[in-house]
């Protein structure tokens, strides 16, 4: 059985490998430095590291969509990626 029906491309494969690496990284982080106790941040809800990662990934998807929809034509997509990294740092620090 081949995976041709899944229509893989190099960029999408790298994207999913990246997501898998982030998930594994979170596991390693927890193993090395346990401390994922819930805390209440700026959203007023208790979140753990996993929740913050979820919010980061979800928010990053919307930042990229917003970039595609709102940025001037021809603006490189990594502009959205830079914003997402800043957003991720803010989420892990303040949420």
């Amino acid at each position, binding site marked *: 059985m081949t995976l*041709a029906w899944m229509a893989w*491309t190099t960029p*999408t494969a790298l994207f999913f490998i990246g997501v898998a690496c982030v998930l594994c990284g979170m596991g390693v982080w927890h193993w090395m430095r346990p401390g994922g106790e*819930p805390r209440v941040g700026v959203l007023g*809800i208790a979140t753990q590291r996993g929740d913050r990662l979820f919010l980061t990934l979800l928010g990053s998807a*919307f930042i990229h*969509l917003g970039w595609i929809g709102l940025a001037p034509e021809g603006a490189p997509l990594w502009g959205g990626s830079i914003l997402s990294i800043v957003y991720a740092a803010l989420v892990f620090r303040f949420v």
Partner: protein
Amino acid sequence: MKPTNQKAWLLVLPVLGLVALSAVIPLMTVVNYSVQDTFGNNQFFWAGTAWYEQVLHSERFWSALARSLSFSAIILAIEIPLGVFIALNMPRKGVGVVVTLVLIALPLLIPWNVVGTIWQVFGRVDIGLLGATLNAAGVDYNYVQDPIDAWATLILMDVWHWTSLVALLAYAGLVSIPDAYYQAARIDGASQWSVFRYIQLPRLGRVLTIAVLLRFMDSFMIYTEPFVVTGGGPGNSTTFLSIDLVQMAVGQFDLGPAAAWSIIYFLIILTLSWIFYAVMTRDESK
């Protein structure tokens, strides 16, 4: 530090495998499709973010999104209070319990396309009980031609089909409240409203969270019933996101734009479901 037995995690492996096969792998495939173009024969051409740009700049997408959100908001505003009201008035003892539960559960047992067909006939102005009666009574009702009538029919149909679920969940929550709470309320001379506000409603929080999430996700993804009743019409007035998506993917075979549309659709459902969940469990998570 107390050692923790982590072996229980092994028990979730089968579920993880099933989710991977039924959700993650198809989702990955949709992501792959969303950045490519295809003309069939399993040949794909790189399109980058072109389909996302097309969807995000299309009036068709935003109109369908507005219709889907409006539909979900309306049915939640009706079904949740109505379901709780029905549950509060259902019998708690005697033969009436079984009879009521069976009657309440009946609409849930009917397949979605059958519900659509029932209401499609029910609302017809020539032979339908609802349509013909309303017209005989002088009400100008025709869901095939009038967008407001079409919306009213779909909302009525959804309320008829799914309020039972909310009622059953709320009923399950109500019967689980210990009698001691009611005894204490009686001793304090609490009114019926106070009992509801300070005992029943807080204790229903969890089941209502589930009810809101289920009903939101289901109504936001609704396809079969409106497709059978109105087919998305008149015009595009009841063309929800799902109906438009199927037209694009199956009718027009535009797999790239349909995949981009699906991803955005999925992200919206995920976000709104998370917001509902976070808001409704905010107090207990602190």
